[in-house]
């Protein structure tokens, strides 16, 4: 373990660590463009110059390995001057079209320009015009070769991460430009990651194009719900400006959030653009057989029904179809309310067609929390289809369905049969054929509108946080469950998902020892050893 000094502070790092990472460990950010921790080192931007004692020349910190006794200065006048000179070179042929550039505001050229204060550039000639200005290079990405500083991150990404080799750098000298290999188009399932890694505005997102300036964005750390991988994301939403007309999309984009245990720095395109579902096609008001109804009436009816069933000792004939789309907290409340209090007929899985998967991030299971549901509710439960069949036989006093679109999975006929046999109450985020067929459809908040935790396929419990307010009348399912508990006088006092999680971690083995704080924004992997504790208890 070499021990070295950076800016007067000592640090010990594993052998082979590059200086830039060693500095990062001390909280010192060395300006860089081509270096990316997830990509091979190219060393071509020459921005991360630092001064190393006993070395006459400045060295690039992304390439030099930390050695014992090294004394590195990142902020010496020489190092700063070196970086400033490099920045001047980089900006020589950059069009500086920040006004039209979507990257403006999160652009490393801007950031380092401010940091290095290159306020007296000496270049005063015409810039080299590249062959083409902005043009689309795939379904999701725009390329502007003029803004490119040829850091080759995108080239290395498609070479090393996706191995699809779409990008290349063509021509020589200051006519070099990045481009697609002839005959290719940037359409791999992870294509938009090049937008994130592009330090400047050369690669921009076509979907986000001109939609919002980044400084208007609010950012909330969350988890993608597209599949059971649980990629860490950042929800970027438009902080509603008072003078902007209401009614437009609130969520502007998803950005991957680094988590070395889950998704590294990446996210698939399908997950990235799934933000559109947050505001579109939502169920915003309670529906009675597809017609707008009072939410209070609907809640009251369900609560009354539960209370009556318990009174009459028929609560075992209440069917509850929970969902692996629900958070751990909601599933825990389902368990407490419906299994432990009412001993209702419980299920949370349905037969589904296998989803697309690949060998990188995308998993076949398209639900974010199946692992959590199995841990909390147990694996020995009936399938949703059995509940439907019981309902159709008239064996159930009511059927409560969370999130599932039964019509899409089991078919409209079986849904109709079940709805004839027992009153159907659907708790859904989006309008679909199931909500139309239900006696009452109740709007619930989606993952961007509430906080909670999901457990991904690796057994990693990760927090989501509320980015925007629930749309319309919708509210988080755990709040609805708490309201039912009030009607049954169970004495629950949950005021937040956090307090539910505290109880969950106290009573479910896999979550033992976890707390909202220890999860942090990166999550934590649950305890191995005695899984299926719930099933064992049954």
């Amino acid at each position, binding site marked *: 373990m070499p021990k070295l000094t950076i800016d007067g502070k000592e640090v010990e790092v594993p052998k082979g660590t590059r200086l830039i990472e060693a500095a990062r460990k001390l909280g010192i950010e060395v300006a860089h463009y081509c270096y990316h921790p997830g990509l091979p080192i190219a060393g071509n931007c020459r921005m991360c110059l630092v001064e190393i004692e006993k070395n006459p020349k400045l060295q690039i910190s992304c390439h030099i390995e930390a050695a014992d006794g090294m004394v590195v200065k990142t902020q010496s006048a020489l190092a700063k001057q070196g970086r400033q000179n490099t920045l001047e070179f980089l900006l020589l042929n950059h069009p500086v079209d920040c006004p*039209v550039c979507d990257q403006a505001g999160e652009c490393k050229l801007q950031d380092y320009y401010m940091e290095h204060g290159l306020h007296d550039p000496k270049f005063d000639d015409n810039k080299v015009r590249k062959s083409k200005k902005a*043009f689309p290079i795939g379904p999701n990405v725009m390329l502007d070769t003029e803004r490119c500083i040829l850091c080759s991150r995108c080239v290395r990404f498609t070479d090393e991460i996706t191995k699809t080799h779409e990008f290349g750098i063509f021509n020589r000298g200051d006519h070099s430009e990045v481009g697609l290999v002839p005959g290719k188009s940037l359409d791999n399932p992870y294509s938009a990651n090049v937008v994130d890694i592009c330090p400047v505005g050369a690669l921009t997102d076509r979907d986000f194009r*001109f939609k919002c*300036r980044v400084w*208007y964005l609010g950012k909330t750390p969350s988890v993608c719900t597209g599949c059971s991988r649980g990629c860490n994301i950042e929800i970027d939403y438009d902080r509603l400006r008072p003078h902007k007309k209401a009614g437009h999309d609130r969520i502007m984009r998803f950005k991957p959030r680094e988590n070395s245990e889950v998704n590294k720095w990446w996210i698939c395109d399908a997950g990235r653009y799934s933000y559109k579902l947050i505001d579109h096609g939502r169920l915003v008001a309670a529906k009675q057989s597809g017609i707008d109804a009072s939410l209070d009436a609907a809640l009251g009816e369900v609560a009354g029904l539960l209370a009556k069933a318990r009174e009459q000792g028929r609560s075992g004939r209440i069917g509850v179809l929970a969902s692996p789309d629900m958070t751990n907290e909601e599933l825990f409340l389902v368990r407490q309310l419906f299994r432990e209090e009412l001993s209702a007929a419980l299920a949370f899985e349905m037969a589904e067609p296998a989803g697309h998967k690949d060998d990188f991030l995308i998993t076949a299971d398209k639900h974010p929390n199946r692992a959590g549901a199995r841990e909390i509710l147990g694996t020995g439960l009936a399938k949703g289809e059995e509940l439907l069949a019981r309902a159709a036989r008239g064996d159930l006093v009511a059927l409560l369905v969370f999130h599932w679109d039964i019509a899409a999975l089991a078919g409209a006929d079986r849904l109709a049969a079940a709805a004839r046999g027992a009153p159907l109450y659907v708790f859904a985020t989006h309008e679909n054929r199931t909500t139309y067929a239900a006696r009452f459809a109740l709007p619930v908040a989606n993952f961007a509108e509430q906080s909670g935790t999901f457990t991904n396929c690796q057994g990693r419990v990760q927090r989501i946080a509320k980015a925007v307010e629930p749309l319309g009348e919708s509210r988080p399912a755990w709040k609805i469950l708490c309201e039912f508990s009030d009607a049954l006088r169970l004495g629950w006092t949950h005021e937040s998902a956090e307090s539910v999680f505290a109880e969950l971690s106290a009573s479910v083995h896999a979550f033992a020892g976890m707390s909202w704080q220890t999860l942090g924004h990166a999550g934590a992997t649950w305890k191995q050893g005695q899984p299926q504790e719930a099933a064992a208890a049954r």
Partner: protein
Amino acid sequence: MAANVKVLKRRELTWWENTFLPSIYAGLVITSRHFFGNLAIHISHVFGLRKKERGSTTYQYPEEKRPLAHRYRTRHRLMKRDSGETRCVACMLCETICPAHCIAIVAKEHPDPDIEKMPASFDIDLGKCVYCGFCVEVCPEDAIRMDTGRLDIAAYSRGGMILNFDHLMNPELPVLDPAKPVAR
């Protein structure tokens, strides 16, 4: 820290000054001089004399407009390129800097990739504008200026105070339409 205090003594007024009569008299002389001087000029004007002298320093506004300093900030306009298109590229810096939040821009793609971006809509709510001129200073494209010289801004509704893109591009048009509905 002890402050250095210098005590200034006021001059004692004389008895005669204390009556204020001389000051009142002097004041009356001044105002009367103006009164009779201006009166004489006005009367002369009636007879077509002394036309070059003004009997007043005020401007009779609608008929007579005060010359504006060239840097005086008046209603906004959007500048045009040689082709007649707007210079604005919808960078939203003006919207960002505006302390009154009176600017609202929606961007769209420009057919010319060399320009790339242009406003799909550009609204300025003059009812909120504080005429600080920050938008002009911040504009990187010299696309917005406040030099129309137009001060005649009035409307019958708040909605009528909102300038849209056409108004900004054509500052000579009569823009504030009294018939505009009150609601936005």
